[in-house]
């Protein structure tokens, strides 16, 4: 837009008789436009957006932009002197420079350790312009250059990196006091402690310093923070608070004594400082709800595992118990069954025995009923004996079933011949089966 298009073709000559009010005649109007959206990209769009948002025309915008650019320089220059000067500070004596707040003297108390060298130089110049003793003399006041000396001293210290660091080490104006319990009650725990650790972080050799974070910080960040501050590598030193070492013309021993004393004092202060920071971190940590939350979460997951393990063990034991019980029961059942079977077997045996006995009685009875096959009248003892011997012989050869069958046949028979027939048949059967030799049985054949 800045470059103007050059057109080589000439303009027409004004026709005769043309006239317009102030040489201008408005004739038509623009045809309706289409609505489109422009791409919010590029430097020219930014300019457009600026104009649109502030409702400026092109020329207005050009002017304001130009003004802003100029203003920026002025702002920078005016910035540092804007701090009001404390009358108490103005009447300071340069001799006790150790207790003076160098940043305040230069009007940089809001920047402190953050002030750049450029800022210090500029601030110095401004202060010099205002407080130069010659100017004061010209204004008619007494030739009081004490504050000017303060300014010079402050600049000397702040522009020397070593001395500045020594001063920054003990610059308690930049410290942020740890919050009291009362302050913490308001619930601004993270905000208050953040400010404290931000201030402490300025002593760290390792930059950037991790942030304290807020209640939503994750575990990793919080742990990084605490680890950082427990292993804090501080450049803080306490030379600035040394007692003055006497000049050479005094006692040399005295001088060395002072130096030793100062050294010890520095060490002591350094240790105290380390301990102080440690306590600070401990305090912050003890009230940190995030850590509690992380612990609870960790416990929850750990407990979950433990509970699961216990449940599994319990289940295993129960399973084993149940299995054992089942086994015992099965065993018992089997035993009982065996016992019952045994008893039954015993009964059956007894019954069989009784049956055999009964059958045997029938057998013996049958020969007795047949009067020992001796016809009528008393059978001689010899016959009886013979018959009974045979009967017993046969009985001995028969098993209980055969005995029972024989007894069946004999049962109810009264006639001697029939009984004999049965016996005879039985003997023949036994002979045929080879159980009895023929001729062994004499009387029953």
């Amino acid at each position: 837009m800045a470059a103007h298009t050059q057109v080589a073709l000439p303009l027409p000559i004004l026709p005769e008789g043309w006239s317009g009010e102030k040489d201008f005649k408005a004739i038509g109007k623009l045809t309706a436009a289409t609505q489109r959206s422009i791409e919010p990209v590029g430097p020219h769009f930014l300019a457009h957006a600026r104009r649109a948002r502030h409702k400026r025309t092109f020329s207005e915008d050009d002017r304001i932009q130009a003004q802003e650019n100029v203003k920026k320089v002025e702002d920078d220059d005016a910035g540092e002197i804007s701090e009001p000067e404390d009358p108490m500070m103005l009447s300071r004596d340069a001799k006790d420079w150790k207790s003076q707040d160098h940043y305040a003297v230069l009007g940089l108390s809001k920047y402190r350790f953050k002030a750049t060298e450029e800022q210090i130089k500029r601030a110095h110049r401004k202060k010099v312009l205002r407080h130069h003793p010659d100017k004061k003399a010209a204004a008619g006041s007494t030739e009081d250059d004490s504050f000017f000396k303060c300014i010079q001293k402050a600049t000397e210290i702040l522009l020397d990196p070593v001395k500045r660091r020594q001063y920054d080490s003990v610059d308690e104006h930049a410290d942020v006091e740890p919050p009291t319990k009362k302050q913490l009650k308001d619930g601004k725990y993270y905000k208050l402690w953040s400010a404290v650790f931000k201030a402490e972080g300025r002593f760290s050799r390792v930059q950037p310093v991790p942030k304290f974070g807020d209640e939503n910080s994750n575990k990793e960040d919080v742990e990084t923070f605490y680890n950082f501050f427990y292993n804090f590598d501080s450049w803080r030193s306490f030379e600035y608070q040394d007692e003055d070492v006497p000049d050479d013309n005094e006692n040399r021993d005295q001088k060395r004594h002072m130096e030793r004393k100062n050294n010890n004092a520095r060490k002591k202060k350094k240790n105290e400082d380390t301990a102080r920071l440690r306590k600070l971190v401990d305090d912050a940590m003890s009230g940190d709800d995030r850590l509690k939350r992380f612990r609870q979460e960790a416990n929850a997951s750990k407990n979950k595992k433990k509970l699961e393990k216990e449940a599994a063990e319990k289940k295993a034991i129960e399973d084993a118990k149940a299995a054992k019980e089942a086994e015992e029961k099965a065993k018992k059942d089997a035993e009982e069954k065996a016992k019952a079977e045994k008893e039954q077997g015993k009964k059956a045996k007894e019954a069989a025995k009784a049956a055999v006995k009964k059958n045997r009685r029938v057998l013996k009875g049958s020969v007795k009923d047949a009067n020992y096959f001796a016809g009528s009248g008393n059978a001689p003892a010899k016959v009886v004996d013979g018959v009974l011997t045979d009967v017993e012989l046969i009985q001995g050869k028969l098993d209980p079933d055969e005995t029972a069958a024989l007894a069946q046949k004999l049962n109810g028979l009264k006639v001697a011949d029939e009984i004999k027939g049965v016996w005879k048949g039985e003997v023949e059967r036994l002979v045929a089966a080879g159980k009895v030799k023929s001729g062994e049985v004499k009387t029953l054949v």
Partner: protein
Amino acid sequence: MAAEGQTSGTTPGERHAIGICFGNSNSSIAYTSVEDKAEVIANEDGDRQIPSILSYVDGEEYNGQQAKQQLIRNSKNTVAHFRDFLGQDFKSIDPTHCHASAHPQEFESTIAFKIQDKEGDEESTVTVSEITTRNLKRLAQSASDFTGKQVNSAVITVPTNFSEKQKEALTKSANGAGLEVLQLIHEPVAALLAYDARPESKVSDKTVVVADLGGTRSDVAVIASRGGMYTILATAHDYEYAGSSLDKVLMDHFAKEFIKWNATDPRENARSLAKLKLESEATKKALSIGTNANFSVESLAEGIDFTSTINRMRYETIARKVFEGFNRLIEGVVKKAGLDVLDIDEVILSGGTSHTPKIASNMVSIFPESTTILAPSTTPTAISPSELQARGAALQANLIQEYEKEDIEQSTHPAVTTVKHLSNAIGVLAITGDESKGVFTPIISAETAVPARRTIHINTPKEGGDVLIKIVEGGSHIKVTKPEPKSKTNGEKQDDDSEDEDDSDEEPEDIREKVWKVGNVLAEAAVKGVKKGGKVEIMVNVAGDLAVTVTCREIGGKGGVRGNLAAP
């Protein structure tokens, strides 16, 4: 949550922003050097084009070129071509390109990949947003390693048809990677910005076609660039003709060659196919640089090594269909914008596929000679097409990183970006030597966003005196004149090659030219007493409500004429 809170909290002072071009196939990252020049960063492997691929082997993550190699051996655990899946549901995605890598799956109304991304055999389901986060994390890490400062914010390019949902998903993924998204800008505009930010380029009114030919899709946009402000007039998207279709052509070609000597078809085996594809892509790239390229794959199929060569001519012949597809696409979008190829002042070829010389030479034949084709083969000073978008994004990041988040949001609000655009050009009537009738000379082009202000310096007649300034609206149309049928008479004399005759008949094309037609007269003004050889400055200022202010004065002269036209 914590990460998001952290990123949105970055103040302009702590910002270290880069530009990211996050594509389906490749991504690139760029930063602005001390002298505000955008430069593309090479990752630790030395690649400026970092394949957007992540691969997992035994719990270890690989990205870029290393991951691409894994497509052969470890395709199941390699995720590729996932950018377009962001913020989409499973129904609306096209998984074609993921065929040779991990397959997308539906997962809780979004899309996920099942991969073994940890040690052991356990498969885990990783959503596409998670994959994107991991990829962006790697990109940011590469940029941080290169610049030595932790990168915490970015401008990311997106296609013009990215929906709000997709943009939201991308922003979320970027936040997950520890990046604050300063702005999402459209890819073609980023490419245009990269060219316009070159120190030698002047701010002017021009109409530009940006053809972004990528790996899996081609997007073309017609952009009106008016005084450095960009308005997209029309866009077209094509998923058929893209870099992968050129790969396909070469793959088929070499597969056929292979079959000639061996009985097997390498396209039937997944691993052989992957090897074929990788080498085809390499061959394609080699053909963009040289006129001959080798194709050689060890153990392409069944342990048989395969070597072949192809020259550019042959490649251009077999890939003609695809090239014609590109041509149709670009011609189509110019028509869609209601313009003619004669209206186009610049064609920017962007995207990796645009390295192909044939595409640029096709553009030369489609567009008139007055059109600048910005491609490496036609313009020696052209910026590498694959770096354009990342550069544009980096430039934009550099521009806006000083602003508060709120400021950026307000400036990109539709209330600011939606403005009226002139439907007709505004110009002044000048005369040529003999013509007494006026010749329209545009001052402000059509499609210029209002408010707009333009100034021209115009000659006066040699003898000076009083001149008339007539401010008019003008429309352009295409005048087609039949050329003199001179060749025809020539042809008739040569009866013997009458067959060739038919072809050459069409050769003398119609002469087409853009002519201005004077429309509505807006105002007349007179500048009196112009010195001999003096010049007149005309400033036309169109306000947001279409009210026009015209200021005319003689350069070096006092006073001048000023007049207003009320808003319609």
